[in-house]
């Protein structure tokens, strides 16, 4: 309720300001606009009036076209870059492992034993998680960090 009240307060204030600006400038501009067309300055030579189609072209098609062109140019790099990761929108790409084990090297008993984890060694990859969970974090000889974003 409070949030709604503040929002409505802000919108009414903005509306009030806009109303004052238009009330002050609108009538004078409206009153002067016929004079722009009728009264000419010295040396002014009015050209032919614009055809309706040309008016549409100049004041509608061209601005919209320019808007679209600039929008395209702005978004082109991200379109070229391909799909991009956005936090919270999920991730279904295939797993990738850089600097992973070379073929024939994984489940090497000697290597697993060297890390100081007896449980992980013999059974290979399958029962390694249970071995890792079994050891308390303080006793573990390997370190690192965990983080979330």
């Amino acid at each position: 309720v409070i949030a709604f009240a503040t929002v409505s307060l802000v919108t009414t204030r903005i509306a009030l300001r806009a109303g004052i600006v238009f009330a002050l400038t609108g009538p004078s501009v409206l009153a002067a606009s016929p004079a722009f067309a009728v009264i000419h300055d010295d040396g002014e030579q009015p050209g032919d009036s614009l055809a309706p189609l040309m008016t549409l072209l100049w004041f509608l098609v061209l601005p919209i076209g320019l808007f679209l062109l600039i929008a395209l140019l702005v978004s082109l790099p991200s379109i070229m870059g391909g799909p991009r990761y956005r936090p919270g929108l999920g991730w279904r790409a295939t797993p990738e492992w850089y600097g992973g084990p070379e073929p024939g090297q994984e489940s090497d008993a000697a290597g697993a034993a060297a890390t100081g984890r007896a449980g992980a060694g013999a059974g290979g990859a399958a029962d390694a998680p249970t071995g890792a969970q079994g050891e308390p974090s303080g006793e573990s000889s390997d370190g690192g960090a965990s983080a979330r974003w």
Partner: protein
Amino acid sequence: VLAGEAFSPRQRDEIVRAIQLAQQQSGLRFSVYVGPVQGDPRAQARRLHAELGPDAPNSVLILVDPASRSLEIVTGTKARRWLDDRTAALGSLTMTSSFAAGDLAGGIARGLKAFGDHARHPKSLHTDDLSR
């Protein structure tokens, strides 16, 4: 929402180059896994780390799960001497701040750069297993 390839060739190149640079600088082996995790991310990261085989003690595994938005860094017993947990936490902060902005590859590359810089150490002849 995303299907298929995780990274563009250019992003892939960026990650691979960052791994190579970090390995050259620090003498540690870096491995980056980007993919979904079933269950406990920490356990999964440790399992992947163990899969690195004989290199595992000297390796750093970085697991990034964009779906559950979790990042795990596992350092091996020897790697931990040069890349302590506090440095790992600092690097993870660098990475997650980029991830939160939607830049996965850039965050990974930046984190690897930080790790490579921090883990730089003089080469010792007989205790460093990794010759690369």
